[in-house]
Protein backbone atom coordinates (compact mmCIF):
# COMPACT_ATOMS: atom_id res chain seq x y z
CA UNK A 1 0.00 0.00 0.00
CA UNK A 2 2.63 2.44 1.05
CA UNK A 3 4.94 1.28 -1.69
CA UNK A 4 2.26 1.85 -4.28
CA UNK A 5 1.46 5.29 -2.96
CA UNK A 6 5.11 6.22 -2.91
CA UNK A 7 5.70 4.88 -6.37
CA UNK A 8 2.77 6.81 -7.75
CA UNK A 9 3.81 9.92 -5.87
CA UNK A 10 7.35 9.59 -7.20
CA UNK A 11 6.11 9.12 -10.72
CA UNK A 12 3.92 12.17 -10.30
CA UNK A 13 6.79 14.25 -9.08
CA UNK A 14 9.16 13.11 -11.84
CA UNK A 15 6.67 13.58 -14.62
CA UNK A 16 5.63 16.92 -13.22
CA UNK A 17 9.25 18.00 -13.14
CA UNK A 18 9.71 16.79 -16.70
CA UNK A 19 6.71 18.79 -17.82
CA UNK A 20 8.03 21.83 -16.03
CA UNK A 21 11.42 21.48 -17.69
CA UNK A 22 9.83 20.94 -21.07
CA UNK A 23 7.69 24.03 -20.61
CA UNK A 24 10.83 26.02 -19.89
CA UNK A 25 13.03 24.68 -22.67
CA UNK A 26 10.57 24.03 -25.45
CA UNK A 27 8.58 27.15 -24.82
CA UNK A 28 6.66 28.41 -27.87
CA UNK A 29 7.26 32.06 -28.50
CA UNK A 30 4.34 34.36 -28.04
CA UNK A 31 1.71 33.99 -30.65
CA UNK A 32 1.45 31.67 -33.59
CA UNK A 33 4.47 31.72 -35.94
CA UNK A 34 1.98 31.88 -38.77
CA UNK A 35 1.01 35.38 -37.65
CA UNK A 36 4.44 36.68 -38.55
CA UNK A 37 4.54 34.83 -41.85
CA UNK A 38 1.15 36.07 -42.96
CA UNK A 39 1.92 39.59 -41.84
CA UNK A 40 5.05 39.50 -43.98
CA UNK A 41 2.92 38.59 -46.98
CA UNK A 42 0.40 41.36 -46.49
CA UNK A 43 1.06 44.70 -48.16
CA UNK A 44 1.85 46.32 -44.83
CA UNK A 45 0.10 49.59 -45.60
CA UNK A 46 -2.09 49.25 -42.49
CA UNK A 47 -4.84 50.68 -44.63
CA UNK A 48 -7.67 49.09 -42.72
CA UNK A 49 -9.75 48.12 -45.73
CA UNK A 50 -10.11 44.64 -44.29
CA UNK A 51 -11.99 46.13 -41.39
CA UNK A 52 -9.39 45.57 -38.67
CA UNK A 53 -6.75 48.06 -37.63
CA UNK A 54 -3.44 47.23 -39.27
CA UNK A 55 -1.95 44.36 -41.21
CA UNK A 56 -0.75 42.67 -38.01
CA UNK A 57 -4.28 42.41 -36.71
CA UNK A 58 -5.46 41.26 -40.12
CA UNK A 59 -2.83 38.49 -40.10
CA UNK A 60 -4.10 37.29 -36.74
CA UNK A 61 -7.66 37.40 -38.03
CA UNK A 62 -6.81 35.43 -41.14
CA UNK A 63 -4.85 32.77 -39.27
CA UNK A 64 -7.63 32.41 -36.73
CA UNK A 65 -10.18 32.27 -39.50
CA UNK A 66 -12.23 35.31 -38.55
CA UNK A 67 -11.21 37.12 -41.72
CA UNK A 68 -11.42 35.62 -45.21
CA UNK A 69 -8.21 35.50 -47.24
CA UNK A 70 -9.90 37.65 -49.85
CA UNK A 71 -10.36 40.59 -47.50
CA UNK A 72 -7.30 42.50 -48.70
CA UNK A 73 -8.15 44.58 -51.80
CA UNK A 74 -4.65 45.98 -52.33
CA UNK A 75 -3.21 42.45 -52.35
CA UNK A 76 -5.65 41.29 -54.97
CA UNK A 77 -6.42 37.76 -56.04
CA UNK A 78 -2.73 36.88 -56.25
CA UNK A 79 -2.23 37.49 -52.54
CA UNK A 80 -5.47 35.70 -51.72
CA UNK A 81 -4.24 32.61 -53.54
CA UNK A 82 -0.91 32.64 -51.75
CA UNK A 83 -2.59 33.10 -48.39
CA UNK A 84 -4.99 30.29 -49.18
CA UNK A 85 -2.11 27.92 -49.87
CA UNK A 86 -0.21 28.97 -46.73
CA UNK A 87 -3.27 28.73 -44.52
CA UNK A 88 -4.58 25.60 -46.19
CA UNK A 89 -7.99 26.96 -47.04
CA UNK A 90 -9.71 26.54 -50.36
CA UNK A 91 -10.31 29.51 -52.54
CA UNK A 92 -12.84 29.46 -55.30
CA UNK A 93 -11.18 30.60 -58.48
CA UNK A 94 -12.61 33.96 -59.22
CA UNK A 95 -12.22 37.63 -59.43
CA UNK A 96 -11.52 40.23 -56.81
CA UNK A 97 -12.39 43.74 -57.65
CA UNK A 98 -9.49 46.09 -58.12
CA UNK A 99 -9.34 48.55 -55.23
CA UNK A 100 -10.72 52.02 -55.79
CA UNK A 101 -8.02 54.63 -55.59
CA UNK A 102 -8.06 58.21 -54.38
CA UNK A 103 -8.44 61.13 -56.75
CA UNK A 104 -8.07 64.82 -55.89
CA UNK A 105 -10.63 67.07 -57.56
CA UNK A 106 -8.29 69.75 -58.87
CA UNK A 107 -10.80 72.59 -58.88
CA UNK A 108 -11.63 72.22 -55.21
CA UNK A 109 -8.27 71.46 -53.63
CA UNK A 110 -7.05 74.32 -51.48
CA UNK A 111 -3.61 72.87 -50.81
CA UNK A 112 -4.09 72.35 -47.09
CA UNK A 113 -1.61 69.43 -46.93
CA UNK A 114 -3.82 67.52 -44.50
CA UNK A 115 -4.38 64.63 -46.85
CA UNK A 116 -0.76 63.91 -47.49
CA UNK A 117 0.01 64.01 -43.83
CA UNK A 118 -2.70 61.45 -43.29
CA UNK A 119 -1.56 59.16 -46.07
CA UNK A 120 0.11 56.05 -44.63
CA UNK A 121 1.98 55.27 -47.84
CA UNK A 122 3.13 58.76 -48.86
CA UNK A 123 1.01 58.45 -51.96
CA UNK A 124 -0.01 62.10 -52.08
CA UNK A 125 2.36 64.82 -53.10
CA UNK A 126 1.83 68.55 -52.79
CA UNK A 127 2.81 71.60 -50.82
CA UNK A 128 1.01 74.30 -48.89
CA UNK A 129 -1.21 76.27 -51.20
CA UNK A 130 -0.45 73.99 -54.14
CA UNK A 131 -2.63 71.44 -55.86
CA UNK A 132 -2.17 67.96 -54.40
CA UNK A 133 -1.86 64.91 -56.53
CA UNK A 134 -2.24 61.19 -55.88
CA UNK A 135 0.48 58.79 -56.97
CA UNK A 136 -1.59 55.85 -58.10
CA UNK A 137 1.39 53.53 -57.85
CA UNK A 138 1.49 53.97 -54.10
CA UNK A 139 -2.18 54.44 -53.26
CA UNK A 140 -3.89 51.56 -51.52
CA UNK A 141 -7.33 53.12 -51.51
CA UNK A 142 -7.50 53.17 -47.71
CA UNK A 143 -9.55 56.38 -47.66
CA UNK A 144 -7.68 58.08 -44.82
CA UNK A 145 -7.17 61.11 -47.03
CA UNK A 146 -10.89 61.27 -47.74
CA UNK A 147 -11.54 61.63 -44.02
CA UNK A 148 -8.76 64.16 -43.61
CA UNK A 149 -9.81 66.46 -46.42
CA UNK A 150 -11.70 69.51 -45.13
CA UNK A 151 -13.03 70.39 -48.58
CA UNK A 152 -14.45 66.96 -49.50
CA UNK A 153 -12.49 67.10 -52.68
CA UNK A 154 -10.96 63.62 -52.52
CA UNK A 155 -12.96 60.63 -53.55
CA UNK A 156 -12.21 56.98 -54.16
CA UNK A 157 -12.86 56.01 -57.75
CA UNK A 158 -12.57 52.83 -59.74
CA UNK A 159 -9.76 52.96 -62.25
CA UNK A 160 -10.70 53.62 -65.85
CA UNK A 161 -9.86 50.85 -68.25
CA UNK A 162 -6.74 51.64 -70.20
CA UNK A 163 -4.37 49.71 -72.40
CA UNK A 164 -2.16 49.18 -69.36
CA UNK A 165 -4.74 47.37 -67.32
CA UNK A 166 -6.75 45.80 -70.13
CA UNK A 167 -6.51 42.02 -70.09
CA UNK A 168 -7.84 39.25 -72.27
CA UNK A 169 -10.97 37.77 -70.82
CA UNK A 170 -11.37 34.07 -70.27
CA UNK A 171 -12.75 32.32 -73.36
CA UNK A 172 -16.25 31.02 -72.97
CA UNK A 173 -15.88 27.38 -71.94
CA UNK A 174 -16.78 24.71 -74.42
Amino acid at each position, binding site marked *: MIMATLALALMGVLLGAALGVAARYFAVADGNPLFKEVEQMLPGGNCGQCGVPGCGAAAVGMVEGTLPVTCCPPGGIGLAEKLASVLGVTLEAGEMEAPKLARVEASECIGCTRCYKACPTDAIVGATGQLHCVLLDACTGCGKCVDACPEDCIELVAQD*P*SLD*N*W*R*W*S*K*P*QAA
Partner: protein
Amino acid sequence: MSSPSIAAGPFAHDRSSVDRIMLQVCLALAPATFFGLVLFGWPAINLFIVTCGSAIAIEAACLHLMNQPMSRLLDGSALLTGWLLAISLPPWAPWWIGVGGSLFAIGIGKQLYGGIGQNIFNPAMLARVALLIAFPLQMTTWALPAPLFTSGAPGFIEGLHITFGGMPLTDAMVGATALGGLKTEMTLNRTAEEVLNQSFSFWPAFFGSTPGSMGETSELLLLAGGIWLVLRKIIHWEIPVTMLGSVFLMGVIAQQVNPQAYPGGFYHLASGGLILGAFFIATDPVTSPISRTGRIIFGLSCGVLVYLIRTWGNFPEAVAFAVLFMNSLTPLIDRYWRPRAYGRNSSGKPLVAAKWTSQVKEVDKV
Protein backbone atom coordinates in the same frame (compact mmCIF):
# COMPACT_ATOMS: atom_id res chain seq x y z
CA MET B 1 -10.46 45.20 -67.33
CA SER B 2 -11.50 43.04 -70.20
CA SER B 3 -14.24 42.55 -72.70
CA PRO B 4 -15.50 39.00 -73.12
CA SER B 5 -16.65 39.19 -76.71
CA ILE B 6 -13.28 39.94 -78.25
CA ALA B 7 -11.71 36.89 -79.80
CA ALA B 8 -7.98 36.36 -79.91
CA GLY B 9 -6.28 35.04 -83.02
CA PRO B 10 -5.31 33.28 -85.06
CA PHE B 11 -7.87 33.96 -87.74
CA ALA B 12 -6.90 31.08 -89.92
CA HIS B 13 -7.56 27.37 -89.62
CA ASP B 14 -6.64 24.21 -91.42
CA ARG B 15 -10.36 23.36 -91.69
CA SER B 16 -10.04 20.14 -89.75
CA SER B 17 -12.73 19.11 -87.31
CA VAL B 18 -13.48 16.34 -84.87
CA ASP B 19 -16.33 14.92 -86.91
CA ARG B 20 -14.14 14.77 -89.98
CA ILE B 21 -11.47 12.85 -88.05
CA MET B 22 -14.03 10.35 -86.76
CA LEU B 23 -15.53 9.99 -90.20
CA GLN B 24 -12.17 9.23 -91.75
CA VAL B 25 -11.48 6.55 -89.17
CA CYS B 26 -14.85 5.00 -89.98
CA LEU B 27 -14.00 5.21 -93.66
CA ALA B 28 -10.70 3.43 -93.04
CA LEU B 29 -12.57 0.69 -91.19
CA ALA B 30 -15.20 0.34 -93.87
CA PRO B 31 -13.44 -2.09 -96.26
CA ALA B 32 -12.51 -4.54 -93.52
CA THR B 33 -15.96 -4.25 -92.01
CA PHE B 34 -17.67 -4.78 -95.33
CA PHE B 35 -15.52 -7.84 -95.90
CA GLY B 36 -16.45 -9.18 -92.48
CA LEU B 37 -20.13 -8.56 -93.03
CA VAL B 38 -20.10 -10.40 -96.33
CA LEU B 39 -18.02 -13.20 -94.85
CA PHE B 40 -20.32 -13.83 -91.92
CA GLY B 41 -23.63 -13.03 -93.57
CA TRP B 42 -26.91 -11.76 -92.21
CA PRO B 43 -26.38 -12.43 -88.49
CA ALA B 44 -23.25 -10.26 -88.62
CA ILE B 45 -25.08 -7.49 -90.48
CA ASN B 46 -27.85 -7.56 -87.89
CA LEU B 47 -25.43 -7.43 -85.01
CA PHE B 48 -23.45 -4.60 -86.61
CA ILE B 49 -26.54 -2.46 -87.14
CA VAL B 50 -27.88 -3.17 -83.68
CA THR B 51 -24.57 -2.34 -82.00
CA CYS B 52 -23.91 0.90 -83.88
CA GLY B 53 -27.54 1.99 -83.59
CA SER B 54 -27.71 1.38 -79.88
CA ALA B 55 -24.41 3.17 -79.34
CA ILE B 56 -25.81 6.28 -81.01
CA ALA B 57 -29.12 6.02 -79.14
CA ILE B 58 -27.34 5.65 -75.80
CA GLU B 59 -25.06 8.57 -76.58
CA ALA B 60 -28.12 10.69 -77.34
CA ALA B 61 -29.75 9.65 -74.09
CA CYS B 62 -26.59 10.46 -72.12
CA LEU B 63 -26.20 13.85 -73.76
CA HIS B 64 -29.80 14.59 -72.88
CA LEU B 65 -29.29 13.53 -69.27
CA MET B 66 -26.10 15.54 -68.95
CA ASN B 67 -27.63 18.64 -70.50
CA GLN B 68 -25.12 18.74 -73.29
CA PRO B 69 -25.85 20.02 -76.76
CA MET B 70 -27.31 17.36 -79.05
CA SER B 71 -24.97 18.56 -81.78
CA ARG B 72 -22.27 16.54 -80.04
CA LEU B 73 -24.02 13.47 -81.43
CA LEU B 74 -22.84 14.53 -84.85
CA ASP B 75 -19.16 14.40 -83.95
CA GLY B 76 -19.23 10.72 -84.89
CA SER B 77 -17.48 9.48 -81.78
CA ALA B 78 -20.42 7.35 -80.65
CA LEU B 79 -20.72 5.79 -84.07
CA LEU B 80 -17.03 4.99 -84.05
CA THR B 81 -17.17 3.46 -80.59
CA GLY B 82 -20.16 1.32 -81.59
CA TRP B 83 -18.44 0.38 -84.81
CA LEU B 84 -15.21 -0.67 -83.11
CA LEU B 85 -17.15 -2.66 -80.55
CA ALA B 86 -19.28 -4.35 -83.21
CA ILE B 87 -16.36 -5.50 -85.29
CA SER B 88 -14.61 -6.89 -82.24
CA LEU B 89 -17.59 -9.08 -81.33
CA PRO B 90 -18.13 -12.66 -82.47
CA PRO B 91 -20.14 -12.15 -85.64
CA TRP B 92 -23.06 -14.40 -84.72
CA ALA B 93 -23.43 -13.18 -81.14
CA PRO B 94 -26.99 -12.49 -79.98
CA TRP B 95 -28.37 -8.95 -80.15
CA TRP B 96 -28.20 -8.30 -76.42
CA ILE B 97 -24.44 -8.71 -76.51
CA GLY B 98 -24.28 -5.77 -78.92
CA VAL B 99 -26.76 -3.61 -77.02
CA GLY B 100 -25.28 -4.43 -73.63
CA GLY B 101 -21.80 -3.76 -74.97
CA SER B 102 -22.86 -0.38 -76.34
CA LEU B 103 -24.48 0.50 -73.05
CA PHE B 104 -21.31 -0.34 -71.19
CA ALA B 105 -19.04 1.35 -73.71
CA ILE B 106 -20.93 4.63 -74.06
CA GLY B 107 -22.62 4.84 -70.69
CA ILE B 108 -19.88 3.65 -68.40
CA GLY B 109 -16.75 3.73 -70.53
CA LYS B 110 -17.28 7.19 -71.92
CA GLN B 111 -20.08 9.34 -70.49
CA LEU B 112 -19.52 8.40 -66.87
CA TYR B 113 -16.04 9.88 -67.14
CA GLY B 114 -17.47 13.12 -68.50
CA GLY B 115 -18.01 12.46 -72.16
CA ILE B 116 -15.81 12.70 -75.19
CA GLY B 117 -12.17 13.32 -74.43
CA GLN B 118 -12.46 12.59 -70.73
CA ASN B 119 -12.38 8.81 -70.62
CA ILE B 120 -9.29 7.03 -69.36
CA PHE B 121 -9.99 3.72 -71.09
CA ASN B 122 -10.91 2.99 -74.64
CA PRO B 123 -14.70 2.55 -74.35
CA ALA B 124 -15.03 -0.14 -77.01
CA MET B 125 -12.33 -2.29 -75.46
CA LEU B 126 -13.69 -1.75 -71.98
CA ALA B 127 -17.04 -3.07 -73.16
CA ARG B 128 -15.49 -5.98 -74.98
CA VAL B 129 -13.56 -7.06 -71.90
CA ALA B 130 -16.62 -6.64 -69.71
CA LEU B 131 -18.63 -8.83 -72.08
CA LEU B 132 -15.86 -11.40 -72.29
CA ILE B 133 -15.78 -11.77 -68.55
CA ALA B 134 -19.55 -11.70 -68.06
CA PHE B 135 -20.58 -13.82 -71.03
CA PRO B 136 -17.60 -16.05 -71.88
CA LEU B 137 -19.69 -18.52 -73.82
CA GLN B 138 -21.29 -16.07 -76.22
CA MET B 139 -18.07 -14.14 -76.56
CA THR B 140 -16.04 -17.15 -77.62
CA THR B 141 -18.45 -18.81 -79.99
CA TRP B 142 -16.82 -18.17 -83.30
CA ALA B 143 -18.90 -18.74 -86.38
CA LEU B 144 -17.19 -20.31 -89.35
CA PRO B 145 -17.13 -18.05 -92.37
CA ALA B 146 -20.28 -18.51 -94.42
CA PRO B 147 -20.27 -15.75 -97.01
CA LEU B 148 -23.55 -14.17 -98.05
CA PHE B 149 -25.50 -15.92 -100.76
CA THR B 150 -23.39 -19.06 -100.66
CA SER B 151 -24.93 -22.41 -99.95
CA GLY B 152 -24.97 -23.17 -96.26
CA ALA B 153 -25.01 -19.50 -95.31
CA PRO B 154 -27.97 -18.49 -93.18
CA GLY B 155 -30.63 -16.58 -95.10
CA PHE B 156 -32.13 -13.31 -93.97
CA ILE B 157 -34.84 -14.92 -91.84
CA GLU B 158 -32.47 -17.44 -90.36
CA GLY B 159 -30.07 -14.61 -89.66
CA LEU B 160 -32.77 -12.80 -87.69
CA HIS B 161 -33.31 -16.00 -85.74
CA ILE B 162 -29.64 -16.28 -84.91
CA THR B 163 -29.28 -12.67 -83.78
CA PHE B 164 -32.62 -12.05 -82.14
CA GLY B 165 -34.17 -15.43 -81.56
CA GLY B 166 -31.44 -17.10 -79.60
CA MET B 167 -31.24 -19.95 -82.10
CA PRO B 168 -28.53 -22.33 -80.89
CA LEU B 169 -25.59 -22.73 -83.22
CA THR B 170 -24.74 -26.23 -84.28
CA ASP B 171 -21.22 -27.52 -84.05
CA ALA B 172 -20.94 -27.47 -87.80
CA MET B 173 -21.35 -23.72 -87.83
CA VAL B 174 -18.66 -22.84 -85.32
CA GLY B 175 -14.91 -23.24 -85.19
CA ALA B 176 -11.95 -22.03 -83.25
CA THR B 177 -9.84 -18.96 -83.88
CA ALA B 178 -6.20 -19.55 -84.55
CA LEU B 179 -5.23 -18.25 -81.14
CA GLY B 180 -7.91 -20.13 -79.26
CA GLY B 181 -7.26 -23.29 -81.22
CA LEU B 182 -3.59 -23.26 -80.50
CA LYS B 183 -4.19 -22.65 -76.83
CA THR B 184 -6.58 -25.58 -76.58
CA GLU B 185 -4.46 -27.92 -78.62
CA MET B 186 -1.33 -27.14 -76.63
CA THR B 187 -3.07 -28.16 -73.43
CA LEU B 188 -3.43 -31.56 -75.12
CA ASN B 189 0.35 -31.91 -75.17
CA ARG B 190 0.81 -31.17 -78.83
CA THR B 191 3.59 -28.87 -79.96
CA ALA B 192 2.96 -25.50 -81.49
CA GLU B 193 4.76 -26.50 -84.66
CA GLU B 194 2.56 -29.49 -85.13
CA VAL B 195 -0.67 -27.65 -84.50
CA LEU B 196 0.19 -24.78 -86.76
CA ASN B 197 1.38 -26.92 -89.62
CA GLN B 198 -1.92 -28.63 -89.48
CA SER B 199 -4.35 -25.82 -88.93
CA PHE B 200 -2.71 -22.45 -89.60
CA SER B 201 -1.50 -20.92 -92.77
CA PHE B 202 -0.50 -17.31 -93.05
CA TRP B 203 -2.15 -16.14 -96.23
CA PRO B 204 -5.75 -17.16 -95.54
CA ALA B 205 -5.40 -15.62 -92.10
CA PHE B 206 -3.94 -12.50 -93.63
CA PHE B 207 -6.67 -12.17 -96.23
CA GLY B 208 -9.26 -13.01 -93.68
CA SER B 209 -11.14 -16.21 -94.52
CA THR B 210 -10.74 -17.62 -91.02
CA PRO B 211 -12.95 -17.51 -87.95
CA GLY B 212 -12.63 -14.50 -85.70
CA SER B 213 -14.38 -11.32 -84.70
CA MET B 214 -16.60 -9.63 -87.23
CA GLY B 215 -14.14 -7.14 -88.63
CA GLU B 216 -10.75 -8.33 -87.55
CA THR B 217 -10.34 -11.28 -89.87
CA SER B 218 -8.99 -9.45 -92.88
CA GLU B 219 -5.60 -8.19 -91.80
CA LEU B 220 -4.93 -6.98 -95.32
CA LEU B 221 -7.85 -4.57 -95.45
CA LEU B 222 -7.25 -3.37 -91.92
CA LEU B 223 -3.62 -2.76 -92.75
CA ALA B 224 -4.62 -0.80 -95.84
CA GLY B 225 -7.08 1.30 -93.84
CA GLY B 226 -4.56 1.88 -91.09
CA ILE B 227 -1.81 2.94 -93.45
CA TRP B 228 -4.24 5.30 -95.14
CA LEU B 229 -4.97 6.87 -91.75
CA VAL B 230 -1.27 7.26 -91.04
CA LEU B 231 -0.76 8.90 -94.41
CA ARG B 232 -3.71 11.21 -93.78
CA LYS B 233 -2.06 12.11 -90.46
CA ILE B 234 -5.20 11.10 -88.59
CA ILE B 235 -3.21 8.70 -86.45
CA HIS B 236 0.47 8.74 -85.58
CA TRP B 237 2.75 6.05 -86.93
CA GLU B 238 4.55 5.42 -83.64
CA ILE B 239 1.99 3.24 -81.89
CA PRO B 240 1.14 0.78 -84.69
CA VAL B 241 4.75 0.40 -85.80
CA THR B 242 6.17 -0.19 -82.35
CA MET B 243 3.27 -2.37 -81.25
CA LEU B 244 3.33 -4.63 -84.29
CA GLY B 245 7.12 -4.57 -84.35
CA SER B 246 7.52 -5.69 -80.76
CA VAL B 247 4.98 -8.50 -81.07
CA PHE B 248 6.55 -9.69 -84.29
CA LEU B 249 10.06 -9.52 -82.91
CA MET B 250 9.20 -11.37 -79.72
CA GLY B 251 7.39 -14.00 -81.76
CA VAL B 252 10.37 -14.51 -84.03
CA ILE B 253 12.83 -14.71 -81.16
CA ALA B 254 10.68 -17.11 -79.17
CA GLN B 255 10.24 -19.38 -82.16
CA GLN B 256 14.00 -19.42 -82.73
CA VAL B 257 14.48 -20.43 -79.12
CA ASN B 258 11.89 -23.17 -79.06
CA PRO B 259 9.76 -23.82 -82.12
CA GLN B 260 7.99 -26.62 -80.30
CA ALA B 261 6.40 -24.31 -77.78
CA TYR B 262 6.13 -20.95 -79.52
CA PRO B 263 4.50 -19.93 -82.76
CA GLY B 264 6.29 -17.45 -85.02
CA GLY B 265 6.01 -13.73 -85.66
CA PHE B 266 3.78 -13.97 -88.71
CA TYR B 267 1.33 -16.13 -86.83
CA HIS B 268 1.00 -13.39 -84.23
CA LEU B 269 0.65 -10.62 -86.78
CA ALA B 270 -2.07 -12.37 -88.69
CA SER B 271 -4.12 -13.59 -85.79
CA GLY B 272 -6.59 -12.05 -83.46
CA GLY B 273 -7.21 -8.37 -83.42
CA LEU B 274 -3.59 -7.31 -83.43
CA ILE B 275 -3.70 -5.22 -86.61
CA LEU B 276 -7.09 -3.83 -85.67
CA GLY B 277 -5.83 -3.02 -82.20
CA ALA B 278 -2.55 -1.50 -83.32
CA PHE B 279 -4.05 0.82 -85.92
CA PHE B 280 -7.52 1.60 -84.63
CA ILE B 281 -7.72 0.95 -80.91
CA ALA B 282 -4.36 1.67 -79.32
CA THR B 283 -4.17 4.85 -81.40
CA ASP B 284 -7.36 6.27 -79.92
CA PRO B 285 -6.07 9.78 -79.23
CA VAL B 286 -8.06 10.24 -76.02
CA THR B 287 -6.41 7.32 -74.29
CA SER B 288 -2.91 7.40 -75.74
CA PRO B 289 0.05 9.64 -74.83
CA ILE B 290 0.56 13.03 -76.46
CA SER B 291 4.30 13.04 -77.05
CA ARG B 292 6.21 10.99 -79.58
CA THR B 293 8.39 9.33 -76.95
CA GLY B 294 5.29 8.61 -74.94
CA ARG B 295 3.61 6.97 -77.91
CA ILE B 296 6.65 4.83 -78.62
CA ILE B 297 6.72 3.63 -75.02
CA PHE B 298 2.99 3.05 -75.18
CA GLY B 299 3.18 1.06 -78.40
CA LEU B 300 6.14 -1.03 -77.30
CA SER B 301 4.54 -1.84 -73.97
CA CYS B 302 1.25 -2.75 -75.66
CA GLY B 303 3.12 -5.10 -77.97
CA VAL B 304 5.06 -6.74 -75.16
CA LEU B 305 1.90 -7.14 -73.10
CA VAL B 306 0.02 -8.64 -76.03
CA TYR B 307 2.74 -11.18 -76.49
CA LEU B 308 3.02 -12.01 -72.81
CA ILE B 309 -0.73 -12.42 -72.33
CA ARG B 310 -1.14 -14.43 -75.50
CA THR B 311 1.68 -16.75 -74.61
CA TRP B 312 1.36 -17.18 -70.88
CA GLY B 313 -1.99 -15.66 -69.98
CA ASN B 314 -5.31 -17.35 -69.50
CA PHE B 315 -7.08 -15.67 -72.36
CA PRO B 316 -6.11 -16.49 -75.89
CA GLU B 317 -6.70 -12.92 -77.08
CA ALA B 318 -4.78 -10.13 -75.49
CA VAL B 319 -5.10 -6.89 -77.43
CA ALA B 320 -8.00 -5.52 -75.41
CA PHE B 321 -6.30 -6.28 -72.10
CA ALA B 322 -2.96 -4.89 -73.20
CA VAL B 323 -4.47 -1.68 -74.53
CA LEU B 324 -6.62 -1.16 -71.44
CA PHE B 325 -3.65 -1.70 -69.17
CA MET B 326 -1.57 0.81 -71.06
CA ASN B 327 -4.52 3.23 -71.14
CA SER B 328 -4.35 3.33 -67.39
CA LEU B 329 -0.66 4.25 -67.58
CA THR B 330 -1.16 6.99 -70.16
CA PRO B 331 -1.45 9.85 -67.64
CA LEU B 332 1.78 8.68 -66.07
CA ILE B 333 3.55 8.48 -69.42
CA ASP B 334 2.28 11.94 -70.30
CA ARG B 335 3.67 13.26 -67.07
CA TYR B 336 7.16 11.86 -67.41
CA TRP B 337 7.74 11.86 -71.14
CA ARG B 338 6.88 15.34 -72.25
CA PRO B 339 8.13 16.78 -75.49
CA ARG B 340 11.33 18.76 -75.03
CA ALA B 341 10.67 22.48 -75.16
CA TYR B 342 12.79 24.76 -77.33
CA GLY B 343 15.60 26.25 -75.30
CA ARG B 344 15.24 23.74 -72.49
CA ASN B 345 16.78 20.38 -71.81
CA SER B 346 14.61 17.33 -71.46
CA SER B 347 14.09 17.88 -67.75
CA GLY B 348 12.76 21.40 -68.35
CA LYS B 349 15.80 23.38 -67.23
CA PRO B 350 16.89 26.23 -69.51
CA LEU B 351 19.86 25.54 -71.73
CA VAL B 352 23.03 27.28 -70.70
CA ALA B 353 24.05 30.36 -72.64
CA ALA B 354 27.45 30.24 -74.22
CA LYS B 355 29.95 32.01 -71.99
CA TRP B 356 31.83 33.80 -74.73
CA THR B 357 28.86 35.86 -75.85
CA SER B 358 28.60 37.95 -72.74
CA GLN B 359 32.18 39.14 -72.51
CA VAL B 360 32.13 42.88 -72.63
CA LYS B 361 34.53 44.42 -75.06
CA GLU B 362 36.68 46.77 -73.04
CA VAL B 363 36.84 49.43 -75.77
CA ASP B 364 33.16 50.10 -75.54
CA LYS B 365 32.93 50.53 -71.82
CA VAL B 366 32.30 54.23 -71.78
